[in-house]
């Protein structure tokens, strides 16, 4: 558990990843390169390592899921990627997309690098749905008429047509999360960061939103980093699943499921396929060691 060098396992995982990238049919470009990322918090004056050396390459246009036991630092990783927290050590390199040619130079405000979708209620209660979705566009200085025009199809895409003027307190939990998703997509970020966005929803709503997220993502093919504690959700959504160890967070293994479950995907097709059980077993075997082997993990909940 020394702070200085990545463990053998991390190096191995990283080597495996590099090898995988050399496959002839592999998507070539790396979108996010993470090297030696560490995060140390002070908890009651004592240093606690949340992340202990993460080396990772996330490819352009892939749906990348992170699963791990509670307190393994997966949300911390996401918040660092979002620029909401700063790392203690390590590098994050993001390769920018080619600048998009804007038809109207007045509105050519730079495309944002990322947008985060939070687990908890994060849409502003004092703005209607339309203004919430347009928040990022307003921050980029796009004039009102233009941003309302841009927002309209996204409001429709998440199934909220007719609710554009509604205030959040008039919406259900699932609808609020749809607003949050529309807000992120409407801002057209290069990377979407999602922190257990459906964790607080009931099972049926969750299934519906997962289905819709897959559909919207397959249309746009943005790079997504998706944190979840649900193995099932990770398998259904992702191209690759990164399993993290308990605190301090390290990469245990990265499992490629892009070829196992073809796209376009349907939640029910994935879940009923024989490979589903196989992948589930594999991920759970990796996670079980972390949860069962360290009973204190059942009690601690430090991000």
């Amino acid at each position: 558990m020394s702070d200085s060098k990545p463990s053998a396992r991390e190096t191995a995982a990283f080597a495996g990843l590099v090898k995988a990238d050399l496959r002839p049919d592999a998507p070539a470009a790396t979108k996010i390169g993470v090297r030696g990322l560490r995060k140390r918090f002070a908890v009651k004056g004592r240093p606690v390592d949340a992340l202990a050396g993460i080396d990772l390459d996330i490819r352009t246009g892939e749906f990348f899921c992170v699963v791990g036991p509670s307190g393994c630092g997966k949300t911390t990783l996401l918040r660092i990627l979002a620029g909401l927290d700063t790392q203690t050590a390590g590098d994050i390199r993001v390769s920018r997309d080619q600048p998009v040619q804007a038809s109207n130079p007045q509105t050519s405000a730079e495309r944002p690098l990322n947008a985060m979708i939070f687990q908890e209620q994060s849409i502003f209660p004092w703005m209607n749905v339309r203004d919430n979705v347009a928040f990022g566009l307003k921050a980029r200085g796009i004039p009102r008429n233009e941003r309302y025009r841009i927002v309209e199809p996204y409001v429709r895409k998440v199934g909220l047509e007719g609710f554009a003027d509604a205030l959040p307190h008039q919406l259900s939990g699932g609808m609020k999360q749809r607003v949050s998703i529309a807000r992120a997509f409407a801002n057209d970020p290069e990377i979407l960061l999602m922190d257990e966005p459906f964790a607080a929803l009931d099972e049926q709503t969750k299934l519906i939103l997962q289905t819709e997220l897959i559909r919207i993502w397959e249309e746009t093919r943005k790079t997504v980093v998706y944190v979840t504690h649900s193995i099932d959700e990770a398998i259904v959504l992702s191209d690759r699943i990164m399993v993290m160890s308990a605190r301090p967070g390290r990469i245990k293994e990265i499992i490629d499921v892009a070829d196992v479950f073809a796209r376009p995907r349907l939640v029910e097709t994935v879940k009923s396929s024989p490979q589903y059980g196989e992948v589930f077993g594999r991920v759970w075997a990796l996670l079980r060691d972390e949860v069962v082997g360290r009973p204190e993990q059942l009690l601690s909940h430090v991000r």
Partner: protein
Amino acid sequence: MRNTTVDRKHRTHILTHWFSRSNRDRLLSVLSPMLLLVLWEISARANWIDTRFFPAPTEVFRAAGVMVKTGELWTNLSVSLVRIGIGFVLGAVPGILIGLAMGLFGTVRAIIQPLVDGTFPIPKIAILPLIMMIFGIGEESKYVVIAVAVIYLVLINTAAGVRNIEQIYLDVGKNYHAGKLMMFTDVAFPGALPMIVTGLKLGMGVALLVIVAAEFVGARSGIGYLIWSSWETFQVEHMYVGLLVSALLGFASAILLNILEYVIIPWKRR
């Protein structure tokens, strides 16, 4: 057979509903003050109580009618209304602005907080002599003493409102790279609005308290003056009219602020 059973059940239901606790309580709440007034009236007419101190309610209403006709009531009420209105705005506007700045910027908080903490405990009416010394005994001193009373409550609540905005909203603003101005207008101000309105309500309560007290000693007009001078000249009915009007004033201002709250904070409606 079956139908009658249902009917009886239904009737019972209506009866229990009609006499349900909430309705009964509502009825009692209306009856109790009316009963008190009737008892008062009877006691006064029967001379069971000293009518020099407790004139019959009908006498008070008659006096009020006369004062409305002569314009005496309206003159005093309008003077107090203007003082409260101007003083309230003079206190509330800077209170909101300074409070927002204190909530958002640690430097401003570090400078202002000790001044607030040090002077807040002083009863506001206690500085009226000082204010009259500085601003004279005219209208300005009334505006200022109300403004001073209002500004503390608005400022303290506004700053707390900004500080208590949920972290998630600030994170969203940061994640979408909202500029300073937008954080102010689109996140901090609306986020703090419920607490700002709470500050305004508390400020209004104190403003009524302070204006009446200030008019007792330092004025030739106003509701406070009406109450005080009626006592000095022993026109007890007029004093009661003054009390009645100040109660209505408090009632009306509370309703106005509740309407304001309802309109500008639709997301907190219940």
